[in-house]
């Protein structure tokens, strides 16, 4: 066992119920990896647990072990699906570490805040059955308004105006405090001050 700063989180690792986390990992992987064999899911669960323990050893538990586990499950499942789709060898590694290598805590939090903002905007427009729902879905996939316009035979101006109309709903909701898209969230801002 190596000594040094990484070992300071060993006690956190020992406090985890790894069997429970492994069982939850398998449940999460099963839903995302339909069509994969039980052996493949078992291997993926091993990879998730190894990634979880390495992450906790190096960085401790910032939010909760289950949240770390769920994030690694998503990444491992996405990797396996990509590998099957593109018929390339799976890059084995500790995917959470790979993603967060070199990232500051602020950058990680901002990444998650962007995911949250994109999610809530899309879901709110879905709730309101807004005319720009296809736009919101396209943006979530990484398509720009210009790409969408070109792909669907509209002018860029038309699409921009449509999006502006829809964004008004979101801005109204933010101004009324019903949606919280800023970073950090007000509760976390207060906690940091205390």
């Amino acid at each position: 066992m190596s000594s040094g700063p990484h070992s300071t989180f060993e006690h956190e690792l020992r406090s985890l119920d790894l069997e429970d986390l492994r069982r939850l990992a398998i449940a999460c992987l099963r839903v995302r990896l339909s069509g994969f064999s039980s052996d493949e899911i078992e291997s993926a669960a091993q990879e998730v647990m190894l990634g979880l323990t390495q992450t906790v050893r190096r960085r401790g538990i910032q939010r909760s072990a289950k949240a770390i586990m769920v994030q690694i499950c998503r990444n491992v499942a996405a990797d396996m699906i990509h590998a099957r789709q593109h018929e390339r060898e799976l890059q084995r590694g500790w995917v959470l570490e790979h993603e967060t290598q070199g990232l500051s805590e602020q950058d990680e939090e901002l990444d998650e805040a962007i995911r949250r903002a994109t999610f809530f905007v899309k879901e709110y427009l879905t709730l309101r059955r807004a005319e720009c729902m296809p736009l919101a879905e396209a943006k979530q996939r990484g398509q720009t308004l210009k790409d969408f316009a070109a792909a669907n035979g509209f002018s860029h101006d038309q699409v921009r105006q449509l999006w502006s109309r829809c964004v008004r709903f979101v801005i109204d909701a933010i101004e009324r405090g019903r949606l919280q898209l800023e970073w950090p969230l007000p509760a976390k801002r207060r906690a940091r001050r205390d």
Partner: protein
Amino acid sequence: MIDVHARFSALLPAYFADALSEAEHAWIEQHRAECAGCAELFARLEARLPELRDHAGHAPVSVLEDLAQPDSPLTKLERQLVLQHLESCAACMAEARALGYAERARTRIVPTWLWRAGFAAAAALVMFVAIRPEVPTPVHGPTPIVEHAPAPSVARTTVRIALTEPTRGAAAPVTIALVDSSTNTLAIELPPIFLADSSAMTIRVVAASGTTFSQRSLIPDELALPIRLDSTTGPWPPGRYVLELVPAGTGDVSIVRRYEFELRARRP
């Protein structure tokens, strides 16, 4: 004194979600041009956007975590949006449960003795409906009929009912729907109703006998979607009903809206 750099980073999530006003968008661009540190932060986030989209279409893990917390930092609307997503995403629902989320049981309003009495009354109503003359068509046109063919292998079915707003000078329309013994849920589509965001209300379905068959609270945002109502007595019995929207008194609405509909037994 406002920290402009804190304001810049605070607005970045909405910027990348394209949910900023024109003024705020312009401010972000201007500050980027003036501040090297913030410009670098912006560039780092922008470079990682393709990675962030790897899990697009799913709820972020922190959102599922927040949902599971008893003192959740989510607003009421945000919570509703997450639940909306979970209804259609098995993967996120599995993860939400793994993170400790437990679905709340729906509260039954009607006590047992009352629903039994109500069921007897509904049975008597069925006999009355079976022998009385046909209901005349409203002045404004034919009454829409919603049909739902129950799948033979499914024990519980849902019937959709689209209610229409009465027009001035015309008889109140009565929507008719066909039900059978497997119809446990009505999916009610209300006509457009404009309410303040703070208006909480109760939706209630009352039979002609006065028995309440379903009741729950809802918020204005739910009005845009079909409202699913289960009968407290099991399958919805045929009969005439009134759906009432009763304001909770927290908003600026005091009127009780009422819509009539009728459930008729589907012929085998």
